[in-house]
Protein backbone atom coordinates (compact mmCIF):
# COMPACT_ATOMS: atom_id res chain seq x y z
CA UNK A 1 0.00 0.00 0.00
CA UNK A 2 1.16 3.47 -0.76
CA UNK A 3 1.68 5.39 2.43
CA UNK A 4 0.00 8.78 2.35
CA UNK A 5 2.24 11.68 3.34
CA UNK A 6 3.09 15.21 2.27
CA UNK A 7 6.03 13.77 0.36
CA UNK A 8 3.83 11.25 -1.50
CA UNK A 9 1.46 14.09 -2.39
CA UNK A 10 4.33 16.21 -3.70
CA UNK A 11 5.74 13.33 -5.70
CA UNK A 12 2.40 12.61 -7.35
CA UNK A 13 1.87 16.28 -8.09
CA UNK A 14 5.10 16.33 -10.10
CA UNK A 15 5.02 12.90 -11.74
CA UNK A 16 1.33 13.15 -12.64
CA UNK A 17 0.91 9.41 -12.05
CA UNK A 18 -2.57 8.25 -11.09
CA UNK A 19 -3.05 7.27 -7.47
CA UNK A 20 -3.43 3.53 -6.96
CA UNK A 21 -6.80 2.36 -5.65
CA UNK A 22 -7.09 2.67 -1.89
CA UNK A 23 -8.58 -0.76 -1.15
CA UNK A 24 -8.72 -4.04 -3.05
CA UNK A 25 -11.83 -5.20 -4.91
CA UNK A 26 -11.65 -8.97 -4.35
CA UNK A 27 -13.95 -11.76 -5.50
CA UNK A 28 -15.61 -13.23 -2.40
CA UNK A 29 -13.99 -16.41 -1.09
CA UNK A 30 -16.06 -19.45 -0.13
CA UNK A 31 -15.18 -19.29 3.56
CA UNK A 32 -14.11 -16.70 6.11
CA UNK A 33 -13.38 -16.75 9.82
CA UNK A 34 -15.76 -13.84 10.24
CA UNK A 35 -18.20 -12.02 7.97
CA UNK A 36 -19.43 -8.52 8.80
CA UNK A 37 -22.71 -7.54 7.14
CA UNK A 38 -22.72 -3.82 6.39
CA UNK A 39 -19.93 -1.71 4.89
CA UNK A 40 -20.54 1.48 6.81
CA UNK A 41 -18.19 3.04 9.33
CA UNK A 42 -19.08 0.54 12.05
CA UNK A 43 -18.72 -2.57 9.88
CA UNK A 44 -15.40 -1.44 8.42
CA UNK A 45 -14.07 -0.34 11.81
CA UNK A 46 -15.04 -3.75 13.21
CA UNK A 47 -13.13 -5.51 10.43
CA UNK A 48 -10.13 -3.25 10.95
CA UNK A 49 -9.91 -3.89 14.70
CA UNK A 50 -10.54 -7.62 14.20
CA UNK A 51 -7.46 -7.71 11.98
CA UNK A 52 -5.36 -5.17 13.86
CA UNK A 53 -6.12 -5.82 17.54
CA UNK A 54 -7.54 -9.33 17.66
CA UNK A 55 -5.51 -11.16 14.99
CA UNK A 56 -8.45 -12.30 12.86
CA UNK A 57 -7.57 -11.36 9.31
CA UNK A 58 -9.62 -13.77 7.25
CA UNK A 59 -12.58 -11.40 7.33
CA UNK A 60 -15.06 -10.13 4.74
CA UNK A 61 -17.20 -7.01 4.92
CA UNK A 62 -20.32 -7.38 2.76
CA UNK A 63 -22.00 -4.19 1.56
CA UNK A 64 -25.19 -4.23 -0.49
CA UNK A 65 -24.37 -0.93 -2.25
CA UNK A 66 -21.07 0.88 -2.09
CA UNK A 67 -19.27 1.41 1.20
CA UNK A 68 -20.45 4.42 3.16
CA UNK A 69 -23.64 4.73 1.10
CA UNK A 70 -25.91 4.42 4.13
CA UNK A 71 -25.93 6.44 7.32
CA UNK A 72 -22.13 6.81 7.30
CA UNK A 73 -22.64 9.26 4.44
CA UNK A 74 -25.83 10.84 5.75
CA UNK A 75 -24.98 12.10 9.23
CA UNK A 76 -24.08 15.57 10.47
CA UNK A 77 -20.52 14.48 11.40
CA UNK A 78 -20.67 15.50 15.07
CA UNK A 79 -18.32 13.81 17.55
CA UNK A 80 -18.94 14.36 21.27
CA UNK A 81 -19.09 12.45 24.56
CA UNK A 82 -21.32 14.56 26.82
CA UNK A 83 -23.33 11.64 28.19
CA UNK A 84 -24.10 11.19 31.86
CA UNK A 85 -25.53 7.73 32.41
CA UNK A 86 -23.16 4.98 33.59
CA UNK A 87 -22.09 2.95 30.57
CA UNK A 88 -22.74 5.64 27.97
CA UNK A 89 -20.26 8.13 29.49
CA UNK A 90 -17.35 5.69 29.45
CA UNK A 91 -18.19 4.23 26.05
CA UNK A 92 -18.34 7.58 24.26
CA UNK A 93 -15.27 8.86 26.06
CA UNK A 94 -13.32 5.83 24.82
CA UNK A 95 -14.59 6.61 21.33
CA UNK A 96 -13.39 10.21 21.61
CA UNK A 97 -9.95 8.98 22.67
CA UNK A 98 -9.78 6.82 19.54
CA UNK A 99 -10.92 9.78 17.40
CA UNK A 100 -8.00 11.84 18.66
CA UNK A 101 -5.41 9.53 17.11
CA UNK A 102 -7.50 8.12 14.26
CA UNK A 103 -5.83 9.97 11.38
CA UNK A 104 -2.40 8.72 12.48
CA UNK A 105 -3.65 5.26 13.30
CA UNK A 106 -5.17 4.82 9.83
CA UNK A 107 -2.70 6.98 7.84
CA UNK A 108 -5.64 8.88 6.42
CA UNK A 109 -6.72 12.41 7.24
CA UNK A 110 -10.21 12.00 8.70
CA UNK A 111 -10.20 15.75 9.37
CA UNK A 112 -11.14 15.33 13.02
CA UNK A 113 -11.65 18.85 14.25
CA UNK A 114 -12.17 19.08 18.03
CA UNK A 115 -13.50 22.60 17.83
CA UNK A 116 -15.83 22.28 20.81
CA UNK A 117 -19.52 21.56 21.12
CA UNK A 118 -21.92 23.74 23.07
CA UNK A 119 -25.31 22.69 24.36
CA UNK A 120 -27.48 25.81 24.63
CA UNK A 121 -29.37 26.46 27.86
CA UNK A 122 -32.52 28.53 27.91
CA UNK A 123 -33.62 28.72 31.53
CA UNK A 124 -32.14 28.86 35.04
CA UNK A 125 -33.13 25.25 35.68
CA UNK A 126 -31.57 24.33 32.33
CA UNK A 127 -28.34 25.81 33.68
CA UNK A 128 -28.68 23.79 36.89
CA UNK A 129 -29.20 20.50 35.12
CA UNK A 130 -26.32 21.26 32.71
CA UNK A 131 -24.07 21.99 35.70
CA UNK A 132 -24.91 18.52 36.97
CA UNK A 133 -24.20 16.95 33.58
CA UNK A 134 -20.90 18.84 33.39
CA UNK A 135 -19.92 17.63 36.87
CA UNK A 136 -20.64 14.03 35.93
CA UNK A 137 -18.55 14.42 32.78
CA UNK A 138 -15.66 15.95 34.76
CA UNK A 139 -15.86 13.14 37.30
CA UNK A 140 -15.14 10.82 34.36
CA UNK A 141 -12.25 12.95 33.15
CA UNK A 142 -14.19 14.51 30.26
CA UNK A 143 -13.65 18.24 29.82
CA UNK A 144 -16.77 20.30 30.41
CA UNK A 145 -17.23 24.02 30.89
CA UNK A 146 -20.35 25.83 31.98
CA UNK A 147 -20.73 29.16 30.21
CA UNK A 148 -22.91 32.03 31.29
CA UNK A 149 -24.69 34.35 28.93
CA UNK A 150 -21.73 36.72 28.57
CA UNK A 151 -19.41 33.78 27.94
CA UNK A 152 -21.73 32.52 25.21
CA UNK A 153 -21.94 35.95 23.61
CA UNK A 154 -18.19 36.10 23.39
CA UNK A 155 -17.81 32.67 21.76
CA UNK A 156 -20.89 32.63 19.53
CA UNK A 157 -21.89 36.22 18.82
CA UNK A 158 -24.50 35.45 16.15
CA UNK A 159 -27.17 33.84 18.30
CA UNK A 160 -30.30 35.75 19.28
CA UNK A 161 -29.42 37.20 22.70
CA UNK A 162 -32.31 39.64 22.92
CA UNK A 163 -34.48 39.19 26.02
CA UNK A 164 -37.43 38.93 23.65
CA UNK A 165 -35.87 36.01 21.79
CA UNK A 166 -38.11 33.00 21.25
CA UNK A 167 -35.48 30.93 23.11
CA UNK A 168 -33.63 33.34 25.45
CA UNK A 169 -30.07 32.19 26.06
CA UNK A 170 -29.05 31.70 29.67
CA UNK A 171 -25.79 29.95 28.98
CA UNK A 172 -24.24 26.85 27.52
CA UNK A 173 -22.47 23.66 28.46
CA UNK A 174 -19.34 23.26 26.41
CA UNK A 175 -17.32 20.15 25.76
CA UNK A 176 -14.12 21.69 24.36
CA UNK A 177 -12.79 18.34 23.12
CA UNK A 178 -15.85 17.55 20.96
CA UNK A 179 -16.12 18.56 17.33
CA UNK A 180 -16.61 17.15 13.85
CA UNK A 181 -14.88 14.79 11.45
CA UNK A 182 -15.14 14.16 7.72
CA UNK A 183 -17.63 11.29 7.53
CA UNK A 184 -16.67 9.86 4.11
CA UNK A 185 -12.98 9.96 5.00
CA UNK A 186 -13.67 7.83 8.08
CA UNK A 187 -15.24 5.15 5.89
CA UNK A 188 -12.44 5.28 3.32
CA UNK A 189 -9.74 5.30 5.99
CA UNK A 190 -11.06 2.19 7.76
CA UNK A 191 -11.64 0.44 4.40
CA UNK A 192 -8.12 1.15 3.20
CA UNK A 193 -6.47 0.15 6.47
CA UNK A 194 -8.60 -3.00 6.83
CA UNK A 195 -7.97 -4.04 3.23
CA UNK A 196 -4.25 -3.61 3.80
CA UNK A 197 -4.47 -6.06 6.72
CA UNK A 198 -6.16 -8.67 4.52
CA UNK A 199 -9.86 -7.88 5.00
CA UNK A 200 -11.95 -8.44 1.84
CA UNK A 201 -14.34 -5.57 1.18
CA UNK A 202 -17.10 -6.90 -1.06
CA UNK A 203 -19.37 -4.21 -2.47
CA UNK A 204 -22.69 -4.71 -4.32
CA UNK A 205 -23.21 -7.86 -2.30
CA UNK A 206 -26.56 -8.01 -0.53
CA UNK A 207 -27.15 -10.54 2.21
CA UNK A 208 -30.45 -12.34 1.56
CA UNK A 209 -30.40 -14.95 4.32
CA UNK A 210 -28.37 -16.87 6.87
CA UNK A 211 -26.98 -20.39 6.56
CA UNK A 212 -27.97 -22.44 9.57
CA UNK A 213 -26.64 -25.71 10.91
CA UNK A 214 -28.29 -27.17 14.00
CA UNK A 215 -29.57 -23.73 14.91
CA UNK A 216 -26.18 -22.07 14.58
CA UNK A 217 -25.45 -19.45 11.93
CA UNK A 218 -22.61 -20.76 9.75
CA UNK A 219 -22.64 -18.27 6.89
CA UNK A 220 -24.74 -16.04 4.69
CA UNK A 221 -26.60 -16.26 1.42
CA UNK A 222 -25.85 -13.26 -0.74
CA UNK A 223 -26.59 -11.83 -4.16
CA UNK A 224 -23.06 -13.01 -5.05
CA UNK A 225 -23.42 -16.57 -3.81
CA UNK A 226 -23.11 -18.43 -0.55
CA UNK A 227 -20.34 -17.44 1.86
CA UNK A 228 -19.52 -19.59 4.86
CA UNK A 229 -18.24 -18.05 8.05
CA UNK A 230 -17.60 -19.26 11.57
CA UNK A 231 -19.02 -16.01 12.92
CA UNK A 232 -21.34 -13.43 11.39
CA UNK A 233 -21.70 -9.88 12.68
CA UNK A 234 -24.53 -7.54 11.70
CA UNK A 235 -23.74 -3.81 11.46
CA UNK A 236 -26.51 -2.48 9.26
CA UNK A 237 -28.09 0.24 11.40
CA UNK A 238 -31.39 1.35 9.90
CA UNK A 239 -32.14 -2.15 8.63
CA UNK A 240 -31.22 -4.17 11.74
CA UNK A 241 -34.78 -5.44 12.15
CA UNK A 242 -34.74 -6.78 8.58
CA UNK A 243 -31.51 -8.72 9.08
CA UNK A 244 -32.78 -9.87 12.47
CA UNK A 245 -35.96 -11.17 10.84
CA UNK A 246 -33.86 -13.31 8.46
CA UNK A 247 -32.41 -14.96 11.57
CA UNK A 248 -35.78 -15.27 13.28
CA UNK A 249 -35.15 -12.45 15.76
CA UNK A 250 -37.59 -9.74 16.78
CA UNK A 251 -35.78 -6.73 18.20
CA UNK A 252 -36.50 -3.69 20.41
CA UNK A 253 -36.03 -1.37 17.42
CA UNK A 254 -38.13 0.84 15.15
CA UNK A 255 -36.81 2.42 11.94
CA UNK A 256 -37.36 6.17 11.69
CA UNK A 257 -36.30 8.95 9.33
CA UNK A 258 -33.83 11.61 10.37
CA UNK A 259 -33.25 14.51 8.03
CA UNK A 260 -30.10 16.57 7.64
CA UNK A 261 -29.53 19.83 5.84
CA UNK A 262 -26.67 21.78 4.34
CA UNK A 263 -26.75 25.39 3.20
CA UNK A 264 -24.81 27.15 0.49
CA UNK A 265 -21.19 27.81 1.59
CA UNK A 266 -20.65 30.90 3.74
CA UNK A 267 -17.55 32.63 5.04
CA UNK A 268 -16.49 31.50 8.54
CA UNK A 269 -19.46 32.22 10.81
CA UNK A 270 -19.71 29.54 13.46
CA UNK A 271 -16.60 28.17 15.19
CA UNK A 272 -18.36 25.58 17.36
CA UNK A 273 -20.91 22.82 17.09
CA UNK A 274 -24.12 24.09 18.64
CA UNK A 275 -26.82 21.86 20.06
CA UNK A 276 -30.27 22.94 21.16
CA UNK A 277 -32.41 20.66 23.24
CA UNK A 278 -35.20 22.87 24.50
CA UNK A 279 -38.72 22.83 23.10
CA UNK A 280 -37.60 21.18 19.91
CA UNK A 281 -34.34 19.71 18.79
CA UNK A 282 -31.70 21.33 16.63
CA UNK A 283 -27.97 21.15 16.04
CA UNK A 284 -25.73 23.10 13.71
CA UNK A 285 -22.10 23.38 12.71
CA UNK A 286 -20.19 24.86 9.81
CA UNK A 287 -18.35 22.48 7.52
CA UNK A 288 -14.82 23.16 6.33
CA UNK A 289 -16.31 24.02 2.92
CA UNK A 290 -18.44 26.69 4.61
CA UNK A 291 -21.85 25.04 4.42
CA UNK A 292 -24.01 25.25 7.52
CA UNK A 293 -24.76 21.63 8.39
CA UNK A 294 -27.80 21.17 10.60
CA UNK A 295 -30.60 18.87 11.62
CA UNK A 296 -33.49 18.46 14.00
CA UNK A 297 -36.08 15.95 15.01
CA UNK A 298 -37.13 12.67 13.47
CA UNK A 299 -40.04 12.57 11.04
CA UNK A 300 -41.88 10.75 13.87
CA UNK A 301 -43.38 7.81 11.97
CA UNK A 302 -41.86 4.43 11.10
CA UNK A 303 -40.19 4.55 7.71
CA UNK A 304 -37.48 2.95 5.58
CA UNK A 305 -37.90 5.47 2.74
CA UNK A 306 -34.64 7.49 3.10
CA UNK A 307 -36.86 10.41 2.09
CA UNK A 308 -37.87 13.11 4.55
CA UNK A 309 -41.08 15.07 4.77
CA UNK A 310 -41.74 18.81 4.63
CA UNK A 311 -43.15 19.55 8.12
CA UNK A 312 -39.71 18.74 9.55
CA UNK A 313 -38.04 21.02 7.00
CA UNK A 314 -40.31 23.82 8.21
CA UNK A 315 -39.71 23.09 11.91
CA UNK A 316 -35.93 22.88 11.50
CA UNK A 317 -35.82 26.08 9.43
CA UNK A 318 -37.92 27.86 12.09
CA UNK A 319 -35.53 26.75 14.84
CA UNK A 320 -32.49 27.75 12.79
CA UNK A 321 -33.82 31.28 12.29
CA UNK A 322 -35.02 31.60 15.91
CA UNK A 323 -31.55 30.80 17.23
CA UNK A 324 -29.44 32.44 14.50
CA UNK A 325 -31.52 35.15 12.84
CA UNK A 326 -28.67 35.88 10.41
CA UNK A 327 -29.42 32.59 8.63
CA UNK A 328 -32.80 33.94 7.48
CA UNK A 329 -31.69 34.59 3.92
CA UNK A 330 -29.25 31.72 3.55
CA UNK A 331 -30.28 29.27 0.85
CA UNK A 332 -30.54 25.57 1.48
CA UNK A 333 -28.31 23.53 -0.79
CA UNK A 334 -29.49 20.00 -0.04
CA UNK A 335 -31.51 18.04 2.45
CA UNK A 336 -31.75 14.30 2.77
CA UNK A 337 -32.89 11.60 5.16
CA UNK A 338 -31.32 8.53 6.70
CA UNK A 339 -33.05 5.57 8.28
CA UNK A 340 -32.29 5.35 12.01
CA UNK A 341 -32.49 2.28 14.19
CA UNK A 342 -34.38 3.82 17.11
CA UNK A 343 -34.22 1.56 20.15
CA UNK A 344 -36.61 1.39 23.07
CA UNK A 345 -34.19 3.20 25.41
CA UNK A 346 -32.27 5.40 22.97
CA UNK A 347 -29.03 3.46 23.46
CA UNK A 348 -27.28 1.11 21.08
CA UNK A 349 -26.84 -2.65 21.09
CA UNK A 350 -23.48 -4.44 20.85
CA UNK A 351 -24.34 -7.97 21.82
CA UNK A 352 -24.47 -11.66 21.24
CA UNK A 353 -27.87 -12.81 20.05
CA UNK A 354 -29.98 -15.83 21.01
CA UNK A 355 -28.64 -17.39 17.77
CA UNK A 356 -25.18 -18.97 18.12
CA UNK A 357 -22.61 -17.55 15.72
CA UNK A 358 -24.61 -14.36 15.14
CA UNK A 359 -23.52 -11.05 16.70
CA UNK A 360 -25.42 -7.78 16.66
CA UNK A 361 -24.26 -4.17 16.40
CA UNK A 362 -27.09 -1.72 15.86
CA UNK A 363 -29.68 0.56 17.37
CA UNK A 364 -27.51 3.65 17.08
CA UNK A 365 -30.44 6.09 17.12
CA UNK A 366 -28.97 9.55 16.45
CA UNK A 367 -25.55 8.70 17.80
CA UNK A 368 -23.82 6.33 15.45
CA UNK A 369 -21.20 8.47 13.77
CA UNK A 370 -19.33 9.59 16.88
CA UNK A 371 -19.36 6.02 18.14
CA UNK A 372 -17.72 4.57 15.02
CA UNK A 373 -14.24 3.79 16.46
CA UNK A 374 -15.43 2.47 19.84
CA UNK A 375 -18.26 0.56 18.22
CA UNK A 376 -15.83 -1.17 15.85
CA UNK A 377 -13.42 -1.90 18.70
CA UNK A 378 -16.04 -3.35 21.05
CA UNK A 379 -17.78 -5.35 18.32
CA UNK A 380 -14.45 -6.80 17.18
CA UNK A 381 -13.70 -7.75 20.79
CA UNK A 382 -17.07 -9.47 21.12
CA UNK A 383 -16.70 -11.41 17.87
CA UNK A 384 -13.07 -12.41 18.46
CA UNK A 385 -13.27 -13.36 22.13
CA UNK A 386 -16.94 -14.32 22.40
CA UNK A 387 -17.00 -12.04 25.46
CA UNK A 388 -17.99 -8.39 25.47
CA UNK A 389 -15.44 -5.68 26.15
CA UNK A 390 -16.25 -4.21 29.60
CA UNK A 391 -17.34 -1.02 27.78
CA UNK A 392 -20.08 -2.83 25.87
CA UNK A 393 -21.37 -5.05 28.70
CA UNK A 394 -24.17 -2.56 29.56
CA UNK A 395 -25.34 -2.56 25.92
CA UNK A 396 -26.34 -6.23 25.72
CA UNK A 397 -29.60 -7.08 24.01
CA UNK A 398 -31.07 -8.67 27.14
CA UNK A 399 -30.94 -5.39 29.09
CA UNK A 400 -34.58 -4.71 28.23
CA UNK A 401 -35.77 -7.96 29.77
CA UNK A 402 -33.54 -7.31 32.80
CA UNK A 403 -34.96 -3.80 33.24
CA UNK A 404 -31.45 -2.36 32.84
CA UNK A 405 -32.25 0.14 30.09
CA UNK A 406 -29.91 3.09 29.46
CA UNK A 407 -32.37 5.87 28.78
CA UNK A 408 -30.38 9.12 28.57
CA UNK A 409 -33.42 11.16 27.54
CA UNK A 410 -35.72 9.53 30.09
CA UNK A 411 -38.40 9.06 27.42
CA UNK A 412 -39.38 5.47 28.18
CA UNK A 413 -40.04 2.74 25.61
CA UNK A 414 -41.09 5.11 22.82
CA UNK A 415 -38.32 4.95 20.20
CA UNK A 416 -39.24 8.13 18.34
CA UNK A 417 -38.88 10.28 21.47
CA UNK A 418 -35.21 9.47 22.16
Amino acid sequence: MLRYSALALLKHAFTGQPWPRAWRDPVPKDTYDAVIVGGGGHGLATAYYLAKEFGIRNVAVLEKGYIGSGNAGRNTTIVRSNYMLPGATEFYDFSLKLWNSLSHELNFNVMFSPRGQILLLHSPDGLDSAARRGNIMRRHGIAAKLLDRAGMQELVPHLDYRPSARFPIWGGLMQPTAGTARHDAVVWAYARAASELGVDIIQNCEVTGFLRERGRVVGVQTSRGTIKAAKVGIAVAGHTSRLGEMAGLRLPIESHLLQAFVSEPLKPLLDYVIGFGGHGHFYISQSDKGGMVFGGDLDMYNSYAQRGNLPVVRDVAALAVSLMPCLGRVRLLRHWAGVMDMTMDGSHVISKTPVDGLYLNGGWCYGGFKATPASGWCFAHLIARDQPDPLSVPFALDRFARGATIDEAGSGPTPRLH
Partner: protein
Amino acid sequence: MLRIICPFCGERDHSEFTYGGDATVVYPDLSAPVGAWINAVYVRSNPKGPHRERWQHSDGCRLWLIVERDTMTHEIRRVEPARAAIDTLLKEPAR
Protein backbone atom coordinates in the same frame (compact mmCIF):
# COMPACT_ATOMS: atom_id res chain seq x y z
CA MET B 1 -46.81 15.72 3.42
CA LEU B 2 -48.78 12.54 4.04
CA ARG B 3 -52.53 12.95 3.65
CA ILE B 4 -54.71 10.93 5.98
CA ILE B 5 -58.42 10.56 5.27
CA CYS B 6 -59.96 10.95 8.71
CA PRO B 7 -63.27 9.05 8.75
CA PHE B 8 -64.85 11.96 10.63
CA CYS B 9 -63.14 15.10 9.22
CA GLY B 10 -62.08 14.04 5.73
CA GLU B 11 -58.67 14.27 4.08
CA ARG B 12 -56.11 16.23 6.14
CA ASP B 13 -52.34 16.84 6.29
CA HIS B 14 -50.51 14.43 8.60
CA SER B 15 -49.18 17.41 10.57
CA GLU B 16 -52.67 17.60 12.14
CA PHE B 17 -52.15 14.12 13.55
CA THR B 18 -49.97 12.61 16.28
CA TYR B 19 -48.30 9.31 15.62
CA GLY B 20 -49.07 6.58 18.12
CA GLY B 21 -46.86 3.71 16.96
CA ASP B 22 -47.42 0.07 16.07
CA ALA B 23 -51.12 -0.82 16.34
CA THR B 24 -50.53 -4.57 16.33
CA VAL B 25 -49.14 -4.38 19.87
CA VAL B 26 -51.69 -5.71 22.34
CA TYR B 27 -50.92 -5.51 26.03
CA PRO B 28 -51.42 -8.87 27.71
CA ASP B 29 -53.44 -9.53 30.80
CA LEU B 30 -51.88 -8.14 34.00
CA SER B 31 -51.36 -11.69 35.24
CA ALA B 32 -49.56 -12.76 32.01
CA PRO B 33 -45.98 -14.07 32.35
CA VAL B 34 -43.31 -11.36 32.37
CA GLY B 35 -42.01 -12.50 28.97
CA ALA B 36 -45.31 -11.55 27.35
CA TRP B 37 -45.04 -8.07 28.90
CA ILE B 38 -41.42 -7.64 27.77
CA ASN B 39 -42.51 -8.48 24.24
CA ALA B 40 -45.42 -6.07 24.31
CA VAL B 41 -43.46 -3.17 25.80
CA TYR B 42 -40.10 -3.54 24.04
CA VAL B 43 -40.21 -5.77 20.97
CA ARG B 44 -41.47 -4.62 17.56
CA SER B 45 -41.81 -6.26 14.15
CA ASN B 46 -40.74 -2.98 12.48
CA PRO B 47 -41.83 -4.13 9.00
CA LYS B 48 -40.56 -2.71 5.72
CA GLY B 49 -43.86 -2.53 3.85
CA PRO B 50 -47.45 -2.47 5.16
CA HIS B 51 -47.61 -1.32 8.79
CA ARG B 52 -50.70 -1.04 10.98
CA GLU B 53 -50.18 2.00 13.17
CA ARG B 54 -52.05 4.37 15.46
CA TRP B 55 -52.56 8.04 14.70
CA GLN B 56 -54.63 10.54 16.67
CA HIS B 57 -56.28 13.44 14.88
CA SER B 58 -55.03 15.67 17.66
CA ASP B 59 -55.61 18.98 15.83
CA GLY B 60 -59.02 17.83 14.60
CA CYS B 61 -61.71 15.54 15.94
CA ARG B 62 -59.21 13.86 18.33
CA LEU B 63 -60.29 10.38 17.21
CA TRP B 64 -57.69 7.64 17.51
CA LEU B 65 -57.32 5.91 14.14
CA ILE B 66 -55.77 2.72 12.83
CA VAL B 67 -53.90 3.51 9.62
CA GLU B 68 -52.40 0.94 7.30
CA ARG B 69 -49.40 2.64 5.70
CA ASP B 70 -46.45 1.32 3.71
CA THR B 71 -43.19 2.19 5.47
CA MET B 72 -41.29 2.12 2.17
CA THR B 73 -43.62 4.06 -0.16
CA HIS B 74 -45.63 5.95 2.53
CA GLU B 75 -48.80 4.95 0.65
CA ILE B 76 -51.83 4.85 2.96
CA ARG B 77 -54.10 1.92 2.12
CA ARG B 78 -56.70 2.04 4.87
CA VAL B 79 -57.89 4.27 7.71
CA GLU B 80 -60.43 3.28 10.33
CA PRO B 81 -61.36 4.45 13.84
CA ALA B 82 -59.46 2.57 16.52
CA ARG B 83 -62.71 1.78 18.34
CA ALA B 84 -65.08 -0.46 16.43
CA ALA B 85 -68.08 1.18 18.09
CA ILE B 86 -67.18 4.51 16.50
CA ASP B 87 -66.74 2.80 13.14
CA THR B 88 -70.27 1.41 13.41
CA LEU B 89 -71.60 4.81 14.45
CA LEU B 90 -69.94 6.58 11.52
CA LYS B 91 -71.33 4.04 9.05
CA GLU B 92 -74.92 4.40 10.28
CA PRO B 93 -77.16 6.40 7.95
CA ALA B 94 -77.78 9.90 9.26
CA ARG B 95 -80.93 10.16 11.31
